[in-house]
């Protein structure tokens, strides 16, 4: 794409709706994620309300959500649908599309010095594939028997037999179609990211000069390309079991509604293997970009290079490779061979090695820093805490013997929320506060940002850590009514505590949304580099213009985080700043 070519001003539809500009597409993904998050958060509010006070009646909610409540009490089958849809929408339609698709799209070309993604048209198609996927997911609530209720993991036979549960009918079929569209979209996006990163880096931008955000998006995209096909295969076979009377996952002798079903010879465990072959790498697709963003923000707002840039890159690669060979730790109590179980346990805990490198490097990146407590930085710091506690909790689940007790308990729920809800959302917030100027040419309000931090961070961390305690007490997940078990009575107060703790950040996000949308139109205007950051995106105007730079693309002369090295005048040397003649050393 020639920088000097004249581009006729696109009309409204080409500019705002069917844009092929990576920056607009990135914003579209983020806005879509916001809408889906409103739904998924509302559902979680209903769930937490019920879990804290299972017998309470909520007539007002009964009026607002007539299909979900009866006599003001949430129905058990609707509870399971809400849990399923909350998980599915949050993982794929909020975090994946905002953290990876949204930030990846916006940031990658700007950070590597490219004018756009390798395939702008394909990029636009990727986004417009997500939109029907979202709509179909939401529409599944209006299926006659409700939305899918088999958990986001959709294990057969529950998900394969329409009579097994309300929600296992059309709701589950629609879920599968929406997921197929999601996978198609994400694969197209991953292809675009990988090609762009490998081929469109500007002069001087070697792989080991790329910011860690780009590295993590790169690795996450490769993981997605390798892992999602397994879920595609599983979803197709599940669809055939549901609609074509096949028996991929359904054994003989199933009795449902008094009749013996005609299926023969399949095994539900096959689905679990295929599902988790994707499922485990998927969580790293989410967590690694979060860590990459944390590094970028800590470097810029801490005014020092990342400690251990190279070792972090290698740690990321090792985590990614290991993530593909450990999926069985989700199946320790499934009846899998104990030898296979031991292998998966030994392999899974080895991930703590490179993960500890990443955590240590994040902390060490504060040593001899000059910390600026911006909202972005504060959320990045909070990521360190969440990754630490969440990562350690994972060891208890990775060890097969302790997982014998903790499997499918609230320990698991607390762990994965810390890792792929708290860590990822903190990264999304840090990323938005940090890159908002580049997106919209304005600053977000820092006071509101700090308020957002203080209402969100202590409460979410405390809330999800408390879930670990509930899991230690033995409370299982997907549990509509904890009061059904006597042994859980002594810890029901934990459910109340968790709900109260989490309602606060739930409400606080409106503060963030107000700040986000209000600053878009009325925020303080800023120049190209309000944070005095080094990476390439800060060498162009704010907001970044079409084609990202003027006639000349920036050239990368150094690594991405040269803060306070070499006694540079402003305390940093931008990546695109040519060395002075006297200091030039040819390699």
């Amino acid at each position, binding site marked *: 794409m020639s920088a000097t070519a004249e581009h006729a001003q696109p009309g409204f539809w080409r500019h705002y709706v069917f844009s092929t500009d990576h920056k607009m597409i990135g914003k579209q993904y983020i806005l879509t994620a916001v809408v889906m998050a409103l739904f998924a958060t509302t559902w979680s509010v209903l769930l937490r309300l019920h879990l804290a006070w299972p017998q309470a009646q909520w007539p007002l909610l009964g009026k607002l959500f007539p299909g979900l409540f009866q006599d003001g009490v949430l129905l058990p089958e609707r509870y399971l649908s809400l849990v399923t849809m909350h998980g599915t929408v949050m993982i794929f339609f909020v975090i994946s599309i905002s953290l990876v698709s949204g930030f990846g799209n916006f940031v990658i070309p700007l950070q590597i010095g490219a004018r756009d993604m390798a395939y702008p048209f394909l990029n636009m198609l990727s986004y417009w594939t997500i939109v029907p996927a979202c709509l179909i997911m939401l529409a599944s609530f209006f299926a006659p028997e409700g939305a899918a209720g088999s958990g986001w993991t959709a294990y*057969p*036979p529950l998900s394969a037999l329409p009579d097994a549960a309300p929600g296992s009918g059309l709701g589950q079929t629609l879920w599968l179609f929406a997921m197929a569209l999601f996978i198609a979209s994400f694969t197209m996006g991953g292809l675009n990211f990988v090609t762009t990163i490998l081929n469109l880096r500007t002069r001087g931008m070697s792989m080991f000069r790329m910011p860690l955000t780009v590295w993590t998006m790169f690795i996450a995209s490769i993981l997605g390309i390798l892992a999602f096909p397994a879920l595609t295969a599983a979803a197709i076979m599940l669809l055939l079991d549901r609609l074509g009377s096949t028996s991929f996952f359904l054994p003989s002798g199933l009795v449902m509604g008094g009749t013996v079903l005609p299926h023969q010879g399949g095994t539900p465990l096959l689905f679990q293997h295929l599902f988790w072959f994707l499922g485990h790498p998927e969580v790293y697709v989410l967590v690694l970009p979060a860590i990459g963003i944390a590094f970028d923000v800590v470097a810029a707002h801490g005014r020092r290079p990342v400690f251990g840039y190279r070792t972090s890159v290698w740690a990321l690669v090792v985590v990614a490779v290991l993530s593909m060979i450990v999926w069985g730790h989700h199946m320790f109590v499934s009846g899998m061979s104990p030898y296979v179980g031991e292998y998966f346990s030994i392999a899974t805990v080895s991930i703590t090695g490179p993960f500890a*490198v990443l*955590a240590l490097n994040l902390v060490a990146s504060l040593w001899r820093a000059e910390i600026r407590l911006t909202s972005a930085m504060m959320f990045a710091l909070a990521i360190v805490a969440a990754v630490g506690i969440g990562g350690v909790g994972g060891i208890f689940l990775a060890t097969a013997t302790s997982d014998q007790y903790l499997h499918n308990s609230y320990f698991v729920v607390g762990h994965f929320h810390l890792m792929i809800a708290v860590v990822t959302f903190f990264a999304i917030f840090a990323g938005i506060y940090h890159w908002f100027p580049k997106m919209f040419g304005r600053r977000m309000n820092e006071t509101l940002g700090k308020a957002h931090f203080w209402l969100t961070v202590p409460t979410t*961390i405390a809330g999800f850590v408390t879930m670990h305690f509930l899991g230690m007490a033995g409370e299982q997940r997907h549990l509509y009514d904890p009061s059904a078990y006597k042994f859980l009575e002594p810890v029901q107060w934990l459910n109340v505590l968790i709900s109260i703790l989490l309602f606060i950040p739930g409400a606080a996000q409106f503060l963030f949304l107000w700040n986000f949308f209000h600053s878009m139109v009325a925020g303080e205007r800023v120049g190209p580099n309000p944070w005095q950051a080094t990476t390439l995106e800060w060498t162009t105007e704010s907001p970044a213009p079409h084609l990202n730079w003027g006639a000349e693309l920036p050239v990368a002369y150094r690594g991405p985080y040269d803060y306070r090295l070499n006694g540079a005048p402003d305390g940093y040397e931008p990546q695109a700043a040519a060395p002075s003649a006297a200091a030039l050393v040819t390699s």
Partner: protein
Amino acid sequence: MKRERRQTGEVVALILLFLAITVFTVGGFARQWMPPVASAHGVGVDGVIWYLLKATGPVLVTGAVIFMYFLWRYGRGRPTPAPTPNPRAELWWSIVPVVGMMALTEVGVVVKGMPVWEQIYAPIPADAVTVEVTGQQFEWIVRYPGPDGKFGRVKPELVDKTNPAGLDRDDPAALDDIVVRNQVHVPLGRPVYIRLRGRDVLHSFSVASFRVKQDVVPGVLNRVLFVATAPGRYEIACTQVCGMGHYKMHGAVYVDQPQDYQDWLQHQTGWLQQ
């Protein structure tokens, strides 16, 4: 100056926050939440959990202290020497956490965990009491082999309200099979082998006090092996989402003194003979 003072205030607040989080986490995990253990291998499971708590707790606390120190030292605007790149330090500070964490965690898995894992998956001892538990929406059908010591044939097509286990009258071994719903009686101190079957969807048989949990997978015969070490009544929970009645799929395991267990067993009549 004013900015520094304001930031100092924020730094202090942040440090207090991370301190509070650390205290909350460590303090919370130090409390005993788990129900008292009532099985032999359960002691080992708890041993692994306590090992991990004691091994990872100091790691977390050390990390937190360093983190808070860095915030204090480098967050209040005091003069700070410029960081100098130190590839050797960076390399060593990769090797140290990798080696350290691998050692810590693999000790947990291999040294502490494997012996217990082997107990859980040990060959069924000859003196084990064998019980069959079938999970179905939304109850546990429990079957004992009866005086002949053999489980009779069951057929899915025979399952109905009057024959919840699907016992086949044509098989003599099935006539004395004892069937009860949602309760399992076991003797104290003897190994118990539970054969797990599933009839419709996935379930999971779990007794928290025994540290027992195993999925019920239709088409697959899964197993549970444990020795109960304390008499009493222990709740069975289903721990794999199985439909709208998942939350009320509870039952009870009664651990009886051996004589009481025999008495109970002798009191039961074969389901087909009733």
